[in-house]
């Protein structure tokens, strides 16, 4: 089987790749920390988050710190699984071409 089929189209973008990477190693991350990590604008980040949310790979938790809203994001089980498969596929492709 050609491992290219295992590459996930949803992760075919550096920003979405970055969001998922960060969520794999953190229980949850809020919007501002993601923004600082990826160094992108609010709108840009929001649209990629929406994409991942629609795919069912991340879940949104809305909460409050005092009066300020604090929206955090976490990877879902499906998201973790899909992302691991994507990494494996990337590694496989590199190994195959050596």
């Amino acid at each position, binding site marked *: 089987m050609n491992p290219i089929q295992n590459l996930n189209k949803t992760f075919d973008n550096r920003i979405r790749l970055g969001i998922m990477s*960060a969520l794999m190693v953190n229980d949850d*991350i809020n919007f501002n920390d993601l923004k600082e990590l990826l160094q992108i604008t609010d709108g840009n980040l929001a649209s990629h988050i929406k994409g991942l949310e629609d795919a069912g790979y991340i879940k949104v938790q809305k909460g409050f710190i005092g009066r300020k809203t604090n929206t955090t994001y976490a990877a879902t089980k499906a998201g973790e699984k899909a992302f691991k498969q994507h990494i494996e596929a990337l590694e496989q*492709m590199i190994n195959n071409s050596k």
Partner: protein
Amino acid sequence: MNISNQEHHQDLQHIKQMMERSSRFISLSGLSGITAGTCALVGAYFARNIIISSKDTELIDLNDKFYDTSSYGKISIVDFMGNKLFHIAIITFVAAFCLSFIFTYLRSKKTNTQLWGTTSRRLAFNVMIPMVVGGIYLFKLIQNGEYGVIAPGCLIFYGLSLINAAKYTLGEVKYLGYLQLILGVINLWFIGYGLYFWAIGFGVLHIIYGIFMWNKYERN
């Protein structure tokens, strides 16, 4: 390597980098280690001079109180706070903290990370747990006049702090932690030489670690 393959490789690099940056505070500068170590050596030098030159004043004072039956085994907090060695320790700690802070601040500008963000807060919290508990414990030992085990205690609790912190910053910190632990444990069998062990642990090891880290991450 063909183009798509190169891209896959870069993707993996990117994933690794994002995982690191989002979970660890990576701006600890090696130069901070070198300055902290230098401060410790200078502090140890002054402390040694005081111990040698004033055997008949503060220290004996404390010992007199220690052997005085009315306050056997206890010293008051005021006596302790008035001790010159305690002043040196405080000045050394503050100087080391402020100077190393500067280099880490500069490093955070360079790596484009927040100095006081989620990762640094998490790091500070995890460093504090063994440090604060250790500090309280050692304070209690001083109150009971157990001076001999203070220096090894500092090294041991500091070592535990570093090992606990290693998951939240550059991983090499844990080796510094192991070395401090080993040094502290050895010191337990050489009570009375605490200042020398202290100088090796907080001084020499910090400097070696700092040079190593600077060389590895910051040289260019």
